[in-house]
């Protein structure tokens, strides 16, 4: 089955995965356009890693269809694995190899060899900042392992690079390095980037899907996802007694989240018209002095919290 250059990088239809009585994926539908840097967001346990394991052929779906560039990723897993690169959340390496040997070994698994492979090994070591590192992988820091993980995932110049929580266990410098590597790939390959760190998505992704309890609850371009929600986010400042207003707003049916910082409340609303009507009314009912009531552009966090709720509180 050939690669369909016009097909989306990833097409998932009705994907279900059950482990005994537990439903990890409950009818996931998703489309990742070719060339995008796609953020696959969700709280821990939402089903992100399970989805990636199915996409990479490590697990089988209970039902549903998965296509990579038009190729069936379940029935033609051997073919689809030729065009993907994958970095798991905790990458495993042969501790006795060096970074150079690791990349060369993974290149050979794709049938690469000769000068072409050596050239690619040098380029990827350079990209990962590991050119001068001669120690064995067993002694690498977590950040070095993640960078090596991305480098080995790029050895076949994949059409689709899948990264599972690539920054979740890194310190700020390691995170910065990995995100810069991902950002540098924009326009060269499709990147499918699973994470629960919203700021990482805002920094490098152009499209996003939010997964919660095994279902995609929202998907689309990042700016379109945050823009409509922007009209649903408000900041309210009162002169005193903000706690009482916070409590009153929490009881209203349209309030999807209410957070208080001092005398200022940040509110996201499922019904903005109702919010614009009810907030001044509540302020008046409680006898409070309203200092400020304004809409603001919502962040991805507002959208995420609104959709996923407090259980999947992001970092």
């Amino acid at each position, binding site marked *: 089955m050939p690669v369909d250059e016009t097909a989306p990088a990833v097409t998932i239809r009705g994907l279900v995965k059950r482990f005994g009585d537990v439903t990890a994926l409950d009818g996931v539908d998703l489309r990742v356009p070719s060339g995008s840097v796609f953020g696959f967001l969700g709280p821990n346990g939402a089903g992100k890693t399970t989805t990636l*394991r199915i996409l*990479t*052929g*490590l*697990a*089988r779906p209970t039902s549903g269809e998965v296509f990579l560039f038009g190729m069936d990723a379940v029935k033609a897993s*051997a073919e689809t*694995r*030729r065009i*993907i690169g*994958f970095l*798991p959340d*905790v*990458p*495993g*390496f*042969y*501790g*006795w190899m060096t970074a150079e040997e690791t990349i060369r*070994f*993974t290149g*050979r*698994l*794709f*049938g690469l060899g000769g000068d072409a492979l050596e050239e690619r090994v040098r380029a990827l070591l350079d990209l990962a900042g590991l050119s001068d590192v001669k120690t064995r992988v067993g002694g690498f820091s977590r950040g070095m392992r993640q960078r090596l993980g991305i480098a*080995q995932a790029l050895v*076949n110049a994949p059409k689709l690079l899948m990264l599972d929580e690539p920054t979740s266990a890194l310190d700020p410098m390691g995170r910065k390095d990995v995100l810069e590597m991902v950002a540098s790939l924009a326009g060269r390959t499709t990147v499918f980037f699973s994470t629960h760190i919203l700021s990482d998505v805002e920094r490098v992704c152009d499209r996003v899907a939010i997964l919660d309890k095994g279902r995609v609850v929202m998907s689309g371009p990042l700016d379109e996802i945050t823009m409509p929600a922007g009209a649903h986010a408000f900041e309210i400042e009162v002169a005193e007694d903000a706690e009482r207003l916070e409590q009153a707003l929490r009881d209203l049916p349209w309030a999807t989240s209410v957070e208080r910082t001092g005398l200022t409340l940040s509110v996201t609303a499922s019904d903005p018209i109702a919010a614009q009507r009810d907030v001044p009314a509540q302020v008046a009912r409680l006898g409070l002095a309203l200092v400020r009531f304004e809409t603001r552009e919502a962040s991805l966090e507002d959208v995420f919290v609104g959709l996923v709720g407090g259980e999947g509180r992001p970092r």
Partner: protein
Amino acid sequence: MSGFAAFLAKEFTEIRRTWRIWVVPGILIFVGLTSPVLAKLTPALIGSITAGQPGFVIEIPDPVPADAVAQWVKNLTQMVLIAEIVAAAGLVSGERRRGTTILVLTKPVSRDAFVLAKWVSEMALVTVATLVAAAGCYLVTLAVFGTAPLGLFVETTALWLVLAAFFDALVFALSVWTGSTAAAAGIGIGGYFLVSALTVWAPARAMTPAGLLVAVTAAPSGQGFPVTFALPVTLVLTAGLLLLAVALFRRQEL
């Protein structure tokens, strides 16, 4: 079998650069070099123990070259076989534990190639180490006794290699099935004792790997044991266990 050659090359490099080159080959070469010496010295050692005890006499015949082969075979079928079972038990489950199966199997490498390359590399290691150790044992026997039964060395060593291939295949299937090094090693050692126990039952001696165990251990004393059925049955069981390991691994989610 996509990726077999590249993964096999990695296995051979890993053997050279990790503990794998030292453990089983080290034991094999140690027993290869010491078995003839031990066979030569055993009567004298026992004699020295009983010399100080009046009225206690053990008549031990003078050692002969076949005793060196018997000692070599005894070590092979006990200590070396158990060490090999333990060493092979972690080869597949260890990769799963370290997460390196994901590194390899998200590339165009088939699961068949993964399991078979590991078995082939391990058997290559055991075969080369056994041949080197057997050659050492033969030369030391020649040096200690002045003569050495080459045919007996070849026959017993070859039969032992078939047994080792069978137990490696058994342990590979267990390692894939359980996903645990300890469980695979434990059940594998249990399998070894079961095969040893079957040597006392005539039908099993004739038709199962137990017959090879009897043939290997009986050969140095000149008591030939026919392996007309036991040898092909063991070879078929080995192939079957490997196919089982591959089939189990294909179905597993990683």
